[in-house]
């Protein structure tokens, strides 16, 4: 519990932090700070808070407000916006509510990032694993041939983590149903990126077949499934927006 004298100092910490203190008062407060850990902690937190506040950035709205503004100011009605700018209302709002906009180049860039993820798995496992053998979709066992001619041991394909499986399946179904409504270019990019994710999953699973106890590979596979889930959510958001 703070006593009255202590609270008097605490109440002045903001002013002190902002440099609004006369020299004599500053000396007295600094003398108090030298012996009071509580006030030092408060000052430390306030300083961190202020620095964080300074760094807060812009927040675009989750939807394009221009059509409403254009109507109000008598501007020509905007033509149907090209799908080259894609707003992702549902997934983006749910995530950070900071407005996520993906342009086609950004979607394309995402594929580069995902390719790096995929490549990382390949490099980790080594060149001998860089094979394109298909992995069965329904679990069971599968053998994959490396470019060195070796054969992977049979793998029990467990599929995605149980907590993700149902949502993944529903999103895939949603996207399949909405596919016809998306522009061909959007579909092409989505499929390309999902293909990259699938390859990363495929490679991780085959690598795990060799080293089932490898923690990195297990975490990598889990991360990649989550990447896929995030991507599918965004893709479903595109379908929602364009509907």
């Amino acid at each position, binding site marked *: 519990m703070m006593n009255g004298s202590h609270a008097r100092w605490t109440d002045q910490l903001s002013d002190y932090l902002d440099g609004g203190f006369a020299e004599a008062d500053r000396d007295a407060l600094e003398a108090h700070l030298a012996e009071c850990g509580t006030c030092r902690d408060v000052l430390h937190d306030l300083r961190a808070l*202020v620095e*964080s506040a300074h760094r807060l950035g812009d927040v675009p709205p989750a939807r394009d407000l221009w059509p409403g503004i254009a109507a109000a100011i008598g501007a020509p009605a905007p033509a149907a916006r090209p799908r080259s700018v894609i707003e992702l209302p549902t997934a983006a709002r749910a995530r950070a509510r900071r407005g996520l906009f993906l342009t086609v180049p950004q979607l394309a860039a995402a594929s580069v990032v995902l390719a790096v993820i995929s490549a990382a798995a390949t490099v980790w496992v080594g060149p001998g694993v860089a094979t394109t053998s298909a992995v069965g979709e329904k679990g069971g066992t599968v053998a994959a041939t490396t470019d060195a001619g070796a054969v992977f041991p049979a793998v029990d394909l467990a599929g995605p983590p149980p907590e993700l499986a149902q949502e993944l399946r529903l999103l895939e179904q949603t996207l399949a149903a909405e596919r016809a409504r998306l522009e061909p270019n959007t579909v092409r990019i989505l499929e390309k990126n999902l293909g990259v994710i699938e390859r990363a999953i495929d490679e991780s699973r085959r690598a795990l077949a060799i080293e089932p106890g490898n923690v990195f590979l297990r975490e990598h596979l889990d991360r990649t499934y989550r990447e896929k889930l995030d991507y599918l959510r965004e893709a479903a958001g595109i379908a929602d927006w364009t509907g």
Partner: protein
Amino acid sequence: MAADGDHAAFERLYRGHVGRIHALARRMVGDDVAEDLTQEVFIRAWSKLGSFRGDARFGTWLHRLAVNLLLTRRETLRKREAKAVTADGVLDRLVAPRQRSPGAAVDLEAALARLPDGARRIFVLYDVEGYGHEEIAGLVGISVGTSKSQLHRARMLMRGHLNG
């Protein structure tokens, strides 16, 4: 060009500044009405473009216009305040546990949204937007001392929210 009635030029200005204005609205009056008020700011800006003389940057002029408009939306703010009281339990859960770090922007935005209107406006104008106490006092219609005490109150409340 926008001042001459060029809609395309004004759309470019909108696209260049909407993120900042929406962020300001969201932080000052809340997410629920931020988009409507952002739209209103740009509509108001269009109607007042004739008074923009070009001796300040357009962004500065627009920002000041936005602050004035947001501050005058008393009715909207009161409605939001009433809502915030009933939604308090929900907000508590939303910002509950997890790791708390004063530096995390998402936590900071959540804590900001929980501040009472008066303290929040001062915090946003001073700590986020960089206005001085004298300017704030003039804009809000309070004394410099009140602005300072509201700021300290806001910071201490934010600290409490962030440290749980």
